[in-house]
């Protein structure tokens, strides 16, 4: 009954979405307020029904209703409650339901908090949202219905893929989806602007918070996914240039560019057409990501199932929205009024520079991800494009971007003085170069890239701090005055500095992990010692243990440094009976911002085990840096500037951060 109710709710949501897609759009065209007013309530009701469907599926999972095929395929009654719940999106159908749930949530937020949007813009935005919702609801109902029943229900489910039985599944996909789907809002705004043929600085002010929110979640989602892969897969890697990872990186790059170009549009009324294009591209890349992951054209840990009809269906959605929006862009963009002018050396110029490099970097990722598919379709040759390709293309394009990053915020609008800015950054540059030289001297014949990366990372961090120091004049005036100035700075300024600082921090982590890691692989017996960089790990022996739905073999290691015992590490091998599958549980020892990483390989019958031991200095900075970036985004989002404009209950806005 619950599953049928969920199914029915989805059908009702589809009906509402169709109404919401057509009536407000026609109303906006005919200037009919009654028709436009349909959008808001329809969006809220649509969200209600989708939420009902989601709740129905979640209930089926939590209650282990094995008459629902989807639950049987992906759940097991012995799984802990949290995994029974997260399994809802640990499979194709459920994750599409989560996707549409978040889409409907965003639509409802626009409906609820967009009261001071111009009526036609709001109607058009919600109508475009409903077009997307219609497409995906049709997809769920026709090609991947999660509510299908089985005629004879089994007593037990087939369990969730053990790799997914982790807290990471609770965090990573929902956050990433909020980011992906959040891009749909700026897309809808862009399409609405094209339909109306009108775009102004106020438009940018409405779009920016939504883009920022999506960007924050994309950043967090990618970062959490990376940490999850790092500790769960047992390979010690945090980024594999896997097509699915790239699929999330591309919208991120494009959304980052969009954030920056929207600033230009808001402040200077320039780069209008370009901003619209970026908004379209960001969501198109999100859709492409969905297509790559869900169609089964790729094999990866994220591909739950491959079914050709689904692939064709999603491809059709992709072609419709990307092709349609780009065609609309080509047709309507010339109608938009051209924006203002600016000198090449100026804040605007710096933001254009940022956009050029970000989009080019995004293009290289795009080529690297899709080239194998294109080549196979054309010639039948199968190739893999991996880290070497991206290191040789993406890497070099990021260097000029990072070098220029500290300059941007210090340049004045309209006409900047590069020399003066360089002078202000001389302190940061001097320290960075000194660190670079010191690192070269210290490491001797180590990897060349490491000191350069270190210097670059420090330059970015110190550049962000210089920006703050310049604005507060902290080095020139009394501390009290500087503090007052610091408190008076717009939060967006703090946000920018913090986000930029986060990039530098993450870069330091990346340099430390990729260049200064040490690895040791050994086969050892109880009593043996493995040593790496002064750490001695003694293998004490292994003991079997039973978990709720698995059995594990835990190996105990005592970690010593010199005579001092630091910790006990317990990496394990887990065997999940329901799927007869084994996973590796790595053991991590955090030392400062570095980690000792220990994972088990094969366990042999004579009691010996293969172990993989890494020392990864600075590795945690990768994720700390991305968290700092997201915090910067959140700080920026809380800026008064993005909220002023219309009187509204402050409490609601603080909680939701809507667009105005």
């Amino acid at each position, binding site marked *: 009954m619950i599953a049928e109710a969920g199914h029915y709710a989805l059908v009702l949501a589809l009906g509402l979405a169709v109404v919401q897609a057509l009536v407000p759009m026609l109303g906006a065209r005919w200037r009919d307020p009654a028709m436009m007013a349909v959008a808001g309530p329809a969006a809220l009701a649509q969200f209600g029904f989708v939420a009902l469907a989601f709740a129905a599926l979640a209930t089926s999972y939590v209650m282990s209703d094995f008459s629902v095929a989807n639950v049987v395929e992906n759940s097991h009654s012995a799984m802990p409650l949290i995994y029974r719940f997260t399994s809802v999106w640990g499979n194709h159908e459920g994750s599409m339901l989560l996707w549409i749930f978040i889409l409907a949530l965003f639509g409802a937020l626009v409906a609820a908090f967009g009261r001071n949007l111009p009526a036609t813009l709001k109607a058009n935005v919600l109508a475009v949202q409903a077009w997307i919702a219609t497409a995906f609801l049709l997809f769920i109902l026709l090609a991947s219905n999660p509510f299908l029943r089985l005629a004879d229900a089994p007593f037990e489910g087939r369990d969730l893929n053990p790799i997914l039985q982790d807290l990471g599944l609770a965090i990573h996909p929902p956050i990433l989806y909020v980011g992906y789907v959040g891009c749909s809002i700026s897309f809808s705004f862009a399409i609405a602007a094209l339909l109306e043929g009108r775009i102004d600085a106020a438009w940018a002010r409405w779009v920016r918070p939504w883009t920022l929110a999506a960007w924050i979640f994309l950043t967090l989602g990618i970062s959490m996914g990376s940490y999850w892969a790092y500790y769960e897969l047992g390979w010690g890697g945090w980024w594999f240039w896997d097509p699915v990872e790239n699929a999330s990186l591309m919208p991120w790059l494009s959304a980052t560019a969009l954030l920056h170009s929207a600033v230009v549009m808001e402040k200077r009324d320039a780069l209008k057409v370009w901003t619209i294009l970026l908004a379209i591209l960001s969501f198109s890349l999100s859709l492409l990501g969905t297509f790559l992951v869900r169609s089964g054209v790729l094999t990866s840990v994220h591909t739950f199932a491959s079914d050709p009809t689904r692939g064709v269906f999603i491809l059709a959605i992709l072609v419709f929205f990307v092709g349609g929006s780009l065609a609309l862009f080509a047709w309507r963009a010339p109608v938009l009024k051209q924006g203002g002018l600016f000198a090449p050396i100026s804040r605007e110029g710096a933001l254009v520079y940022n956009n*050029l490099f970000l989009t080019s970097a995004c293009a290289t990722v795009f080529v690297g991800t899709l080239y194998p598919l294109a080549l196979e379709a054309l010639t039948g040759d199968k*190739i893999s494009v991996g880290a070497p390709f991206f290191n040789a293309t993406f890497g070099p394009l990021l260097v000029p971007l990072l070098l220029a990053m500290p300059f941007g915020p210090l340049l004045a609008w309209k006409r900047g003085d590069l020399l003066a800015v360089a002078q202000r950054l001389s302190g940061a540059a001097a320290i960075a170069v000194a660190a670079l030289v010191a690192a070269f001297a210290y490491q001797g014949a180590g990897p060349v890239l490491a000191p350069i990366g270190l210097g670059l990372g420090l330059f970015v961090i110190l550049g962000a701090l210089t920006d703050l120091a310049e604005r507060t004049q902290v080095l020139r005036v009394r501390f009290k005055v500087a503090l007052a100035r610091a408190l008076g700075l717009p939060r967006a300024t703090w946000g920018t500095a913090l986000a930029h600082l986060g990039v530098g921090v993450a870069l330091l982590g990346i340099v430390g992990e990729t260049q200064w890691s040490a690895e040791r692989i050994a086969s050892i017996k109880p009593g043996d010692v493995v040593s790496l960089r002064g750490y001695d790990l003694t293998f004490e022996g292994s003991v079997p243990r039973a978990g709720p739905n698995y059995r594990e073999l835990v190996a105990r290691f005592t970690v010593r440094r010199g005579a001092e015992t630091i910790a006990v590490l317990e990496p394990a091998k887990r065997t999940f009976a329901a799927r007869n599958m084994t996973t590796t549980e790595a053991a991590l020892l955090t030392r400062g911002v570095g980690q000792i990483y220990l994972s088990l390989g094969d366990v042999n019958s004579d009691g010996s085990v293969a172990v993989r031991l890494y020392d990864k200095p600075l590795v945690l900075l990768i994720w700390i840096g991305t968290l700092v970036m997201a915090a910067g985004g959140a700080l920026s989002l809380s800026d008064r500037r993005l909220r002023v404009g219309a009187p509204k209950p402050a409490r609601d806005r603080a909680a939701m951060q809507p667009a105005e």
Partner: protein
Amino acid sequence: MTRRQRRLLLLGAGLGVLGLAAALVLSALKDSIVFFNSPSDIVEKRVTPGTRIRLGGLVAPGSLERGSELAVRFQVTDGNRAISVAYRGILPDLFREGQGVIAEGALDTAGVFKADNVLAKHDEKYMPREVADALKKQGYWKDDAQKRDAARPPRQVP
């Protein structure tokens, strides 16, 4: 600077960066891509020793030998030909005899594939797509069996 000059500058900068990106992509595509081959491909195409490739197929049952210091040897087969693979290190969790595998590395002059990376599938449900395609080409992939399997309702656990 006139409007026109500014436009040209912007356009020039844009094309410049895009050109740089294109040049990087083209040079990287020449050097850093790795072709996928089945054991039959290796024999038929006479892949030169030392070229970095990916070899995919099934781990031949009974072929896994463990040496000292984590050295392993196994055969990768597509039902038609088999290639010996030598690897030192830890095999992935889902590496099993009779299951799909992809090894990355190069052939040595003796015809043994020296792998520096071994990938198995992520999930017991499916085969790496390249491997499935290679097996289909050799006629060892039972499409019908696969379909039947997918359509069958889940096995009941008493």
